[in-house]
Every structure is written in structure tokens, then in C-alpha cells.
């Protein structure tokens, strides 16, 4: 298959993020607009209804390394969250526990990662986990 160069992919994703492609429950963009390497991204997930995450806005940091999109990005929650696969003390998303990261394909994107994390919030094992008070963030 023809491999899209990394920057092209990321620029495309940047544009999608700004245009709000998708259902409006996730958002992403460059952390720093001047970042020419397009590595550091911020993401936002709106907690799904009928779960303990409801009505909350979760902020994340997504890092797309040089091998992206062949390699998955590293994802980290900034807002404190209690969820399976998320490290409780620093918010890093365990790439082995989140299926989309462990079985990454180069057709996946930041949007898909965010949407998948959001979907996992609705899973039975996660949706009722007691959550820390709103607005807390991890210290790093």
C-alpha cells in the first residue's frame, strides 16, 4: 500500500480537527500552532451520557512520534480520570490495554483514538467507576 508521508497525514488531521469532523464529542488540535513537527497535540473528550463521565470534559495530550502513522501515538490524560487502562497516577494510557493502540493500524488517526477512548468510557466495566472530583488534573 502506498504510505502517506507523516506530515501530510498530520496536516490532514489538523484540518479535520479544526473543521469539527465527527459528531462533536471529541476534538483535537495542535498543542502549539507553531509546532512544525506536528508532534504534540491536545485532545478533548466529552464524557458520554449515562456514565460516570457524563458532562465532563477530559483533556488529553497526544504525541505523534516520528514513526506515526505507522506507530501509534502515545496518549495521556491531563484531566484526572478513573478508567481501565489509564494509569492512575499520571494519566498515561497503557498502549497494551487499549485495543486500538495495541493493534494499531496506519489507517487509524487521532480522531479514532479519541473516539475509541470515549467509547471505552461507555463500557460496563468503566461506566460506573467512581470518578475523582471534576477539574482535577495530573500533576505532570
Amino acid at each position, binding site marked *: 500500500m502506498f504510505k502517506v508521508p507523516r506530515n501530510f497525514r498530520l496536516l490532514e488531521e489538523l484540518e479535520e480537527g*479544526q473543521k469539527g469532523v465527527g459528531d462533536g464529542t471529541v476534538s483535537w488540535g495542535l498543542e502549539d500552532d507553531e509546532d512544525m513537527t506536528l508532534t504534540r497535540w491536545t485532545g*478533548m473528550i466529552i464524557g458520554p451520557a449515562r456514565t460516570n463521565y457524563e458532562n465532563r470534559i477530559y483533556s488529553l495530550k497526544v504525541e505523534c512520534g516520528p514513526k506515526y502513522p505507522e506507530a501509534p501515538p502515545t496518549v495521556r490524560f491531563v484531566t484526572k480520570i478513573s478508567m481501565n487502562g489509564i494509569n492512575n497516577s499520571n494519566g498515561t494510557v497503557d498502549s497494551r490495554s487499549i485495543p486500538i493502540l495495541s493493534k494499531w493500524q496506519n489507517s487509524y488517526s487521532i480522531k479514532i483514538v479519541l473516539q475509541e477512548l470515549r467509547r471505552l468510557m461507555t463500557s460496563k466495566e468503566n461506566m460506573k467507576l467512581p470518578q475523582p472530583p471534576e477539574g482535577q488534573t495530573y500533576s505532570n
Partner: protein
Amino acid sequence: MADNGAADPGNNNNNKPDASEGTIIKVTVKTPKDKEEIAISEDASVTQFKEEISRRFKAKQDQLVLIFAGKILKDGDSLNQHGIKDGLTVHLVIKTAHKAGDGASSSPSSSSSTQAGSSSSPSPGTNPSTAGTTGPAAPPTQTPNILTGFGDLSSLAGLGMGSANFMELQQQMQRQLMSNPEMLSQIMENPLVQNMMSNPDLMRQMIVANPQMQQLMERNPEISHMLNNPELMRQTMELARNPAMMQEMMRNQDRALSNLESIPGGYNALRRMYTDIQEPMFSAAREQFGSNPFSALGGNSESGAQPSRTENREPLPNPWGPPSSTSSSENGGGTTAGTGTTTGTNPSVSNPLGINAASLGNGMFNSPGMQSLMQQISENPQLMQNMLSAPYMRSMMQSLAQNPELASQNPASSPSAGTNTAQQQQLMQQMLQMFAGGGGGGTQTPEVRFQSQLDQLNAMGFINREANLQALIATGGDINAAIERLLGSQPS
């Protein structure tokens, strides 16, 4: 770009200092539910943007949270700063007054109340039954039995309910739990409860410490066997913990059972199983967590395939019994057993009835029908005797079978039980049917039906006619099973 020096036509924002400069851009504002296009000046601040949005979406400004490209737009920022341009989309979240944050704050309080409540949920059979029993009539003296098993939880009496009497507290909790299945599932999901339940030794200790349970164990070594098997306990608790898994198991059991029917000779085995399960079912009739005991039955899918008798058989004493402490305690013990039992298969019959009974349980016990039933039972000494001499539901059902009008009278006499009445009648009829089907004779007394079996047992040296009869009743006439039962019930 910003070349229209004239007043901006779309500038309906209030207080724009440099009104003439900014271009109007159209920004799409999207909420999870809806989407609006808002025209705003390019140089506007987020605050101004929010004002416009609040008008359009009819929400207060401070309820609005704007997100663009993964960042939250703070009031002090400007749209420009974030690179918001014409045609782009900004996400909007309208915060409602009640937030999921409440979930966090209420969980500490719920976990403390679940500690008190956990005395009920971890051994789902025991407490609800005793609390249920203690509900209407019987003294709350039975609850201390369970409490002592759980260590000193009386200190929790002051929590939450404000009731000085811990028994009352527990009863209240039970009633609340029963009426609100969601709360129950919440409690079950509480990590504290789950931790407790995941510790088989702890569970076992708790169950065993209950004197009612001990009585039951003496009567039925199978229970102690089951309790001693850690694997089984763990499975049971997994099941009790995870309602979804329980249902899965139940479905598997049903499928296994239907397969079983097609095996030659399997139908008889099924019938036997039905009669065995009748008892737990009756306990479910008064046990509020009706479905739980059964699903616990679904512990071992393999044994379902075996036509031979199942291991599970805790004869559950009769739930229709008068509110005497004996039968209540038996009930309590019985239902615990119902919860704790496994390795038996879970017949499909008990499932629909179990669920039916669960909703019945509350109404039934409290309904005048039940009370009139009890009245009639007490009036009819034959029945009383049966009940007292044989703690098995079966004998009572036999009497009921003999006096079918007795059975039909009871539900009918309950005046305004509404749907409960219909359900009760159905339940009664079903029970009678099954009983009749299981016994194969319906209206004969057990002695008559099992005459030949009794003789055989006698010839083999089992001279205790009463015990023989009970064993035969329990096994539905199967001599081998009865023998096993008799041997098992010898003092061990």
C-alpha cells in the same frame, strides 16, 4: 481581508470596541445534540462569542464550555489566538446543573452505607430472607445471627439512616434495595463490595458463621461440600457479582437442559431435577433476590449434561410457613443455601418462575392472601403437621395438591393484590403442576406413591420410614438417589 471599513452588517454583538475592523466569520458551533452557525467578528474575544452563543442556545454563559482543536477556550482568549477562522467548527458543551461529579461525592457515602448494606449483599441469600422474614412479623432476633458473622457492624448503625436500631436499619436497607434493583447493582459494583466478594475465604467464613447456615449444613452435607470447594465459591461469587454473567450462565444452562431433554431417559432426569429445583424456587418465591439464588445454581455447566442427579439440593424449607422462628430461620438458612448452591444445573423452569417470584416475593408475603393461607394452614392440623415434620416444601405442596381448593382459595382471597394475585395463582398452579408432574401421581400421598420404593428401602435395611419417605419425596421416587440422600444425611 478586513477591508470592509463600513459597519459590519452581521455585527449584532454588543459592545464591540473596534467594530469597524473585524471581519465577520461564520463559525459553526456544535454540541453533541445540535449545531448552529454563528456569525462573529474575527477579532472577537471568547467572552463575546459566548454571549452570542448563550443567546442562540438559550443557555447561561457560564454554563458554556467551548472547545476548539482539543483546547478549551478561556474567556480571556480571543478567537484569533486559537486560530478560529471562517468555516471552522467549535465544539460546545453546555454544563447542566447536576454533574457526574455528584457521582463521585455520593460514592463515598454510598460505600459507607454499603458497608452496612454489604452485610446484606455479599451473602445475598441470607440477609434478604431474614430481613424479609423479619419484615412483617418475626422478631428481629435473627438478624443478629448474620451480623455476628460479619463482625461488629453495629457501629454502622448510625450511618445514613439515622436509625438507632441496627435491625431496623438493615431492614430498611433491604427494603430499599429490593425496591430499587438499580441500587442493588450499584452496590454490587461498588469496589468495596466486590473486594469482599472476591475473597472466597471471607465469604465462606461469613456464610458458615451464620447459625442458620450451620443448621442447614448439618442437614445437608452437600452444602458444606460446596462451601469447602473454593473454586465453586469463587464461581458463585463471580456470578453473584456480575449480573450479566449470571444471565449468561442461566442461558447456557437452559440450552444445556433443552439438549438434555432429547437424550433417552433424559426427560426423567429432567423431571427429577425439576422437583429438586422446586424447593429453591419456593424460596425464591419469598426471597426478594429471586433471580440470584438461581443464577448461583448455574455454577457448573458440565453437570447439566449428566442425566444423573445433580449435587445441588438444598431442601429449602417452606416459604409459605407461618412466621414462626423455626420456619423463618429455616427459610433464612434455606435461602442462603439457595444462594450458595451451585454445581446443580439451572433449569429453565426456575428461571421464569424465579423472576416472577422475585416480584411476587414482596407482594406475596405481605398480601392478605398469604396471611389467609397461613390461617388456613394453621386451621388444618394435617397441614401443620406436615409442615412441621417435614421441612420440605414438598409435603406442604402435597397437602395443597390434595386440597386443591385450598390452593386456589388462597390467592383468590387476597383482595386487592392486583397483578400479584394473578401471578400468585399462576405460580401456585405451576407449582402444583410441576409437583404433580414430578411426582407422577398428583393427588396421592407420598406414602402411597412410593410404597414400592419404601418397601425396597426397608428390605435394604433403611428402617427409618420417615427419613426414607422424605428422601423419596426429595428425589421424586428415585431409589438410588434416595439412598444416597439417606447415606449422606447420616451424621457425618
